């Protein structure tokens, strides 16, 4: 039985590797989106809640709107609904890059909301101090808020990446491939349950690895506790 299992897996190995690469690519693009767009967006929502900007209320309304709309979409429907936009922006609505786009849209919204929540835990005293020391807005963000909230931000990003692993599994719909698609096509649909469970096992390992890595890093950079 063991030999049959090994043979089956060996048979599917090239497809498995390809699907892992596709998953990784989608996750990297979406995570980059979370960091470079979600973080500023979440920070902006937080600051506008604090009334730092002149048009704070209006700004908060639009930013919150984006986050809430994206988050309330059932993910599969979001992917389908975004097809015209994806085609416009990327030139195709099919393939791994095209699949990474809706994933990034979700990653930005998810991380923005979590960033806002993490920053709300930053003590008010810190804002008072920044004000008293005459810090600019940029300094307030980079020298005070991010410094004190950094481990929370890392933990929130870890959660987002783990959610993305789960979201990325349905990307077969738009030909995005990935490990989830591999499990469905080569495992479930071909009645090769060993292949399906292997893929699931790999995903569990991957997610555990991300969680352990994220928690370790968060603890390492936290000097407050």
């Amino acid at each position, binding site marked *: 039985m063991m030999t049959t299992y090994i043979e089956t897996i060996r048979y599917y190995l090239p497809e498995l590797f390809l699907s892992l690469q596709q998953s990784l690519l989608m996750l990297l693009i979406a995570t980059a989106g979370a960091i470079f767009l979600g973080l500023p967006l979440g920070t902006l929502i937080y600051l506008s809640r604090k009334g730092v900007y002149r048009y704070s209320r209006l700004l908060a309304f639009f930013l919150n709107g984006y986050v809430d709309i994206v988050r309330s979409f059932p993910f599969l429907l979001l992917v389908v609904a975004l097809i015209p936009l994806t085609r416009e922006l990327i030139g195709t609505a099919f393939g791994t890059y095209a699949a990474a786009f809706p994933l990034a849209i979700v990653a930005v919204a998810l991380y923005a909301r979590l960033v806002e929540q993490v920053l709300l835990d930053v003590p008010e*005293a*810190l804002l*008072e*101090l920044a*004000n*008293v*020391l*005459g*810090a*600019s807005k940029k*300094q307030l963000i980079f*020298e*005070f808020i991010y*410094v*004190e909230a*950094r481990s929370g931000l890392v933990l929130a990003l870890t959660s987002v990446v783990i959610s993305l692993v789960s979201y990325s599994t349905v990307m077969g719909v738009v030909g995005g491939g990935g490990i989830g698609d591999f499990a469905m096509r080569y495992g479930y649909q071909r009645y090769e349950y060993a292949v399906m469970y292997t893929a699931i096992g790999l995903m569990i390992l991957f997610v555990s690895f991300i969680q352990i890595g994220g928690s370790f890093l968060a603890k390492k*950079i*936290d*000097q*407050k*506790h």
Partner: protein
Amino acid sequence: MISFEHVSKHYAQKNSSLPALTNLTFSINDHEIFGVIGQSGSGKSTLLKLLNTLEVPDAGEIYMDGLALSQLTNQQRLRHRKRLGMIFQQFHLLGNLTVFQNVALPLKLAKIKNPEKVRQLLAFVHLKDKADAYPKQLSGGQQQRAAIARALVMDPEILLCDEPTSSLDGHHAAEIKTVLQEINQVFGTTMIVVSHELELIQQLCRRAAVLEEGRLRAVLEVKTTAKAATASYYQQIKEHLQ
């Protein structure tokens, strides 16, 4: 010289406005340690916020060396804040920065590199060996001394102290009193010490304003006691209990 001239400040509430300070007129001399005493809700914190230009008076004017604080442009306001140092009841140190980095923070904000100055101030507040420690590794008194070093790093002309010893026990509070006295003697810094602790005001200040429900009751000359702030913990307890 700082002078308050008929300063009033109200905070808007739902249907009414809550007076925080009403018609305050008094002045503080250069190099003086001036006390502001009152119960909570008497307007002490508002007074500090006005000095810091974090708030603007509704009526009246505060002059600092002849400059009207409510007339400052944004640029002038930032420059004004840099002339002031501030220490807080809860220290407000950044937990993820070392003591050295905390003290150097105002320099970093002003894009000045002067590690020697930071080291000198750490030595002044007796924290030289704690430069690489994080705030969580320090006692309350040590944290407040680090915060004092941070307040001094930009050579402030005026030091605002908001309940500087209220969250410290007797011995650590005495330490902070001593440091504040030394700052006044060595650097000639004008100090405004806001507190509800009569003893602190008595030991530190020569004059003190008494606030009651936002009104100035009087500016009193403080009778200084010879009680040494440097007395040991045991001596202080003995003095209090016997």
